[in-house]
């Protein structure tokens, strides 16, 4: 009943929240002195608390970057861990200001949920994790398998599409949280655990013997993951959108946490525009001129954050792949800051 009462509380909150608050999120956040950010319940690389209780990850960095742009302080964020099925209700009700929780951008979520996606932090796709001992080499050999999945995700629907499309039977067991699904997979209830490929690598780290499990080569869906904000507040939508663009642009311009102070002195017009020494682009977003400097000093550029959390510099060791910049073979592309 605990879960139900949480949802009821959120639904009631949706009824009570004052309309003015939804329209002026930036002002509300500034008055509160803190950003409220919805994250996962612990997905290494994207959002998970370390042993000291500090949240780290790629999704977490987006929230820290927003806090840096507003307050020049990456710690002014309250992280709200949410299960997949509670996340949208929390956003709708105003419990959180931004949802940065490995959430797939789809048309129906962009419209009927009353929310907007602000960009793509990670281009992902759905895959399958199986035990090596099953000697399965392809997802097409999974006919009649039992599959563990987290409920309330696009994963659940892709799974139905994939097995139906390939005329295969399967049994789905849907759990409230990813941890419960992984535990059931580990205990042998399922042959397969499925989620986004990045998630598979992250969850595999939590298993007793990660080497006994293998991620199958098939990627069965497009999963562009990104942050979400509520409908009806364009200023806030713009700000969250451009914080992510700024991180990507910073990487493209070669601005890093190390060289940011030298870059700020540069005479190059595009650097001067981006770093606020020329013009007032930041103020148009409702923050200060030096917003990009604050972001990069706080969390680094997109590439730095990627490497630190999910890439070569992390335990996950995921290759950049699609998430490389557009001019280096990937598809990460941000509109220019001008």
């Amino acid at each position, binding site marked *: 009943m605990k879960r139900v009462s949480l949802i009821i509380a959120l639904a009631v909150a*949706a009824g009570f929240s004052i309309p003015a608050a939804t329209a002026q999120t930036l002002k509300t956040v500034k008055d509160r002195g803190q950003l409220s950010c919805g994250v996962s319940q612990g997905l290494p690389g994207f959002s998970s608390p370390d042993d000291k209780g500090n949240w780290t990850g790629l999704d977490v960095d987006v929230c820290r970057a927003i806090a840096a742009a507003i307050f020049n302080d990456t710690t002014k964020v309250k992280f709200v861990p949410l299960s997949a099925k509670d996340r949208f209700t929390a956003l709708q009700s105003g419990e959180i200001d931004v949802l940065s929780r490995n959430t797939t951008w789809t048309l129906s979520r962009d419209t009927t949920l*009353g929310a907007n996606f602000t960009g793509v932090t990670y281009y992902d796709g759905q895959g399958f994790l199986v035990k090596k001992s099953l000697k399965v080499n392809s997802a097409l050999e999974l006919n009649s398998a039992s599959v563990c999945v987290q409920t309330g995700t696009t994963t659940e629907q892709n799974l139905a599409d994939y097995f139906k499309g390939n005329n295969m039977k399967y*049994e789905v067991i849907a759990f409230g949280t990813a941890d419960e699904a992984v535990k059931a997979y580990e*205990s042998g209830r399922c042959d397969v655990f499925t989620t986004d490929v990045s998630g598979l690598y992250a969850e595999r780290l939590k298993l007793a013997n990660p080497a006994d499990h293998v991620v199958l080569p098939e990627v069965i869906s497009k999963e562009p993951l990104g942050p979400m904000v509520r409908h009806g507040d364009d200023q806030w939508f713009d700000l969250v959108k451009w914080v992510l663009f700024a991180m990507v642009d910073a990487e493209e311009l070669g601005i890093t946490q190390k060289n940011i102070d030298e870059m700020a002195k540069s005479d190059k017009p595009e650097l001067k525009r981006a770093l606020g020494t020329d013009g007032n682009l930041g103020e148009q977003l409702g923050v200060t001129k030096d917003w990009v400097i604050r972001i990069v000093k706080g969390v680094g550029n997109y590439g730095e954050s990627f490497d630190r959390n999910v890439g070569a510099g992390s335990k996950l060791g995921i290759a950049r792949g699609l998430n490389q910049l557009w001019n280096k073979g990937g598809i990460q592309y941000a509109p220019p800051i001008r």
Partner: protein
Amino acid sequence: MTSELRKPPSQFLLTLQRALGGRAGWGGFILQLIFVAVLVWISYEIVSNASENLKAQRITAGFGFLANTAGFDVNQSLIPYAGSDTYTRVFFVGLLNTLLVSVIGIFFATVIGFVVALGRLSPNWLLARISGGYVELVRNLPLLFQILFWYLAVLAALPNPRQSVALFGSFFLSNRGLIIPKPIGEPGLEPFLFALAIALVACFALWRYSLRQLFQRGEMFRIWPYVVGLLIGLPLASVLIFGVPVAFEVPVLKGFNFAGGVRLIPEFVALTLALSTYTAAFIAEIVRAGILAVHKGQMEAGSSLGLARGAVLRLIVIPQALRVILPPLTNQYLNLTKNSSLAVAIGYPDLVSVFAGTTLSQTGQAIEIIGITMGVYLLISLVTSAIMSFYGWRLGRSLRA
């Protein structure tokens, strides 16, 4: 001299005043009016605010989503269901799964509860201590942990499908659940069921007849040989004449899982087990209290009539105890039904999991879906209460008679 009689105050007004204002009179009536007005105002504010907020966020309100395609699968469904069905269908799949686990849970909880209560009251020292220990252990641990314990403990103990435990070559037990042969109707099924129905009706009539004999003439009429004869004889005759009623489809291991047969999924088994053992501990205490509430003299009177302990309990003590037991027992039935919503923790597809969970997060219609779900639980609970009240009313009538 004629004294003019004082006109009595209008009887109608007096009644109205008393009905509306109670003892406080018109003042009380005004207070009530204000209270109702405040309530109406608050609910109007909630509704209008909610609809305004939804409009501001451009969320479509209403129940149109129920006709949309669900697009996800469910691993246990009592009615045919596929991912291409609508959310309405999902709702009924979830509802039936909730009802299934509740009804079966209530049955087992009642049986275990009565047995444990009788055990605790038994003069046998060991039996009484074991029953007492069971109650104290089970009712003092949180239900969610018990559900997880049964689920993970049962799963950990069972082998994978390829090494499943086979019984008679047709029952298979593995961590995918218990797979049993599936009965398929044969031409002999209808006559078989017909014969069985006749036998049951005849047995019932015999029982009523024997009761009447006992009460009106004081004669014991031994009916069990006839009952056994009817229940076995008639269906057997139908099988001999019309052929076997059912054939069985034996499950076969194919790929990862068994094909064919009927499957009890471990989620269902664990949830039913946890709910019924947990609620049974409370029921046991309620039954024990009910039995102890019956005066000791009733038991002694029964014994002095020469009845055995079992007969005294069955004929004298329990019918009187039931009057005390029923109201709190109803509470436990309602609790069990509502607690079944913890199913989501172990992936059992109940109403909360598939409808208030997956459907909610796919459609975002939080207010509508939570409203429907709460309404359904309310309805289930009210129906359960009504059935129990009816039973209590009949019981009270028969005890007074």
